[in-house]
């Protein structure tokens, strides 16, 4: 069972470069989320989506963009990478937001130099 799949697993970017973090899930979940996790700072919600065609900002959306053209895919775009975006990024999905489990991908470790 694939679950939530994120690519790439690791990436080094130079300041000002752009990249897209890919996330796909095969569980037909409506809700999808992007988090960043920094040491001692916990999981911070970047963007989320409650269904195809619908996205909304989380706590820390600046510097990021998302799209949700299909139920399965929820890519995260960094347009102008900055050192402050060095972090571990997790994509997650859930069936809805009522007492249901969030399934996480394995994460993308991004370093901006």
């Amino acid at each position, binding site marked *: 069972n694939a679950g939530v799949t994120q690519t790439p697993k690791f990436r080094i970017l130079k300041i000002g470069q752009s990249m897209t973090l890919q996330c796909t899930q095969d569980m037909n979940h409506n809700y999808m989320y992007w988090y960043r996790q920094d040491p001692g700072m916990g999981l911070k919600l970047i963007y989320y989506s409650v269904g195809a065609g619908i996205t909304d900002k989380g706590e820390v959306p600046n510097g990021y963009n998302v799209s949700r053209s299909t139920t399965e895919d929820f890519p995260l775009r960094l347009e102008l990478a900055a050192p402050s975006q060095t972090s571990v990024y*997790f994509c997650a999905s859930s069936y809805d*937001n009522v*007492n249901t489990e969030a399934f996480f991908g394995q994460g993308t470790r991004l370093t901006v130099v």
Partner: protein
Amino acid sequence: TQLLEQSPQFLSIQEGENLTVYCNSSSVFSSLQWYRQEPGEGPVLLVTVVTGGEVKKLKRLTFQFGDARKDSSLHITAAQPGDTGLYLCAGIHAGNNRKLIWGLGTSLAVNP
């Protein structure tokens, strides 16, 4: 201000010891979840508690939801090195657009 406070932040114990970690808030949650995260992996759900006063057991792990649904605890009996990891609590806030709120986690190391 962190809506869900977890304590302790770090815990290092010997194999066989018991421990309790806490997840506290001044707000009411409609449910609370506990996740464990191992290095290099995403969090994985351990349990969801939804009823005030509820107690759930998962082998050597005992989870409790406070009567007022503002706090939760995780007790591990006879800890093993395989219990090592980051324990995160997350709650559906009753009055916050039903978004999942995360604590900062308790990092547990169980030494053989």
